[in-house]
């Protein structure tokens, strides 16, 4: 019997909302799958498209970027630049034929531990049937 596929996911979380939201999920002892390695950044606006390409290139099966809801950004509007920039990244990756499920963005506030948990659960659930991401993975 083959073991169930466990996707490797990188989640870029903004410090002020999404990382705090995931901390809240922890404090509330909400359980979610351990497939995600979080990387805390200051703002979703600081996520360069290169990070996302690089994560897929280095073998991520999925990438999540999570920031503050519009209007709540600690830096006023960083998340709104991110929204535009990452919409283009998503369209580009999909134009290439990458499964749309693999790159995801979410707004998670510091109070939304429950939502963060759900975002991770859904992402893992959606990625499992896709199997490993090999399209952009470095094949050396």
């Amino acid at each position, binding site marked *: 019997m083959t073991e169930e596929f466990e996707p490797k996911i990188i989640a870029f979380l903004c410090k002020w909302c999404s990382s*705090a939201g995931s*901390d809240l999920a922890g404090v509330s002892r909400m*359980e979610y799958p351990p497939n995600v*390695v979080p990387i805390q950044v*200051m703002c979703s606006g600081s996520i360069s498209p290169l990070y996302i390409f690089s994560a897929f290139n280095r073998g991520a099966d999925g990438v999540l970027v999570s920031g503050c809801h519009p209007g709540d950004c600690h830096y006023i509007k960083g998340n709104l630049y991110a929204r535009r920039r990452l919409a283009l990244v998503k369209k580009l990756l999909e134009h290439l034929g990458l499964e749309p499920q693999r790159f995801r963005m979410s707004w998670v506030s510091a109070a939304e531990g429950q939502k963060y948990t759900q975002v991770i659960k859904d992402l893992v659930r959606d990625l499992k049937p896709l199997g490993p991401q090999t399209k952009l993975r470095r094949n050396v």
Partner: protein
Amino acid sequence: MKKTGVFICHCGINIAGTVDVKKVARELSQQPGVALAEDYVYMCSDPGQNLIAQAIKDKGLDSVVVACCSPTLHETTFRNASQRAGLNAFRCEIANIREQCSWVHKDMSKATPKAAQIIKSTVKRVQKNEELEPISVPVTRRAMVIGGGIAGIQASLDLANSGYEVILVEKSPSLGGHMIQLSETFPTLDCSQCILTPKMVEASKHPKIKLMTYSEVQDVTGYVGNFKVKILKKPTYVDPAKCNLCDECSKVCPIVVPNEFDLGLTGRRAIYLPFPQAIPASYCLDDKNCPSLFPVACGKCYHVCKPKAINYDLKPEIIEEEVGAIIVATGYDLYDKEKMAEYGLGRYPDVLDGLQFERMCSASGPTQGKILRPSDQQEPQEVVFIQCSGSRDPELHCAYCSKICCMYTAKQAMLYKHHVHDGQAYIFYIDIRSGGKNYEEFVQRAVEEDGVLYLRGKVSKVFQEGDKLKVWGADTLSGKKIEIDADMVVLAMAMRPAQGAQELAKKLKLALDKDGFLAEAHPKLRPVESVTAGMFLAGAAQAPKDIPEAVAQASGAACKAITILSQDRLYHSPTVAKAVKNLCTGCGMCVAVCPYDAIALKDGKVEVNEVLCEGCGTCQATCLRAAIQVKNLTQHQLHEMILASLGG
């Protein structure tokens, strides 16, 4: 080779219950550049901190990762511990393996490798961390307050009484704002001028306050603690030191224009005293209306002025000042008259706005406190007050509640009854909002003692018929149509941001909300701060508010300003953006995205103002060529972290 120390906390069983800390420590100790990896039951305890400090000294560690709870909890603890042991605080980073790992997983075989990856990624980051020291800048220990109404006066007095110099800038010729126009104030009915003039005098005589009336802020540059401002001082053509208020000039002046102070209910001359208690107490020549300033010389006032206070040759001056903090208290104006055409404001002489009615009730007003119809100078027997004229009407007018109208309408109806005992006052209202100390009792008094008749509903139309004003409305409680033959109608007009406040906000780079009021940094927790560091908000410029609220916010803003002015130097986190000039082509994309105006182009290359930069990194993601990087979270570091997080 790097010498990184990794310290893994058990947090009792909080971490160790789900993460095999020993195994993680063994794995991490094998990582390149890791000099040691140790675990301990409570890393944040004194023995735990000592363990780290000892290892820094003994092993000569050049960087430290503490794998424990969220950095929001103990980052400062461990950075301080590192600093004490001689390691730069910014060479210590936290790997969150509790909230983001052990607490959300149950299976140790899965939580353990995840914790290891989080730590490895943090190790990669810390190995590229720069040694940083907090940025410090000197502070100019004086403030500027913009707006000379009650909020601006209060803020200035609080600052001055705390020992700081204040430049108080007011665009009109006198201090006082709208409050000085009011008759009596709710809920105590004390005379507005009686309580305000002492404060105006105090502000004008205060040795720490430099009063600049008839002046406008032209330009502001710099940053918190170090603003440079340019103020345009318009000439009044009358030397206040010489003017003895004899009124001879005004008597001979041939030009009559509507008097702003009485909202057009009276006229004034081109040379005039703004109002009897004006501060500075001096006449002022209105250069938009005076013929002497044009080639055709009239010169009448000049000739009658015995103290020779008048000088037509004065020119506007630009005065430059340096301040450390700015308080914006630009106040409000009433909603545009033209927009309330359905109620006949501006069309029928006996339809007044709230401020005009205030002037009429004022003992120093156009009727010496008598309530008389402007059309025939008769006492009105039936007066209709209409609340929410322009407020709470998202379709046609302002969506917001102007907040003070319920109270001042009750007061005005009450004052009317005190003047005209046998008259009848009607108030059309949507809701009565009387939250505030003694406010509800005040409204009850208007109804019970003064017999004011409240009608719940909206007025559809006001029109003149003979010498009466027909008011058509609906009483939504009884469902009946109401028609009143009124002698006078008073509109409680919506409050909107003061004329010119929007342009000023642009100069100060302050954000506005959707209604044009100045936006606060946080609606609940930072209500007197603007989004720009070092600039604070007070009074109705931020949102409609009554006098006690404006005064409270002004004192709050003054106190916030003092948190800056009381420092010799300001300290700022050093994790800010830095330019990589050899890669920059000067395209300016980062300049455009920076929320803090912290980036500028100089000689075609990017330059970061470290004091303004908050380190968000939006510039870093926008730059196509890695020419701007946030210290200790560079693209290089992110690259390594991504690799480590994916296991190699």
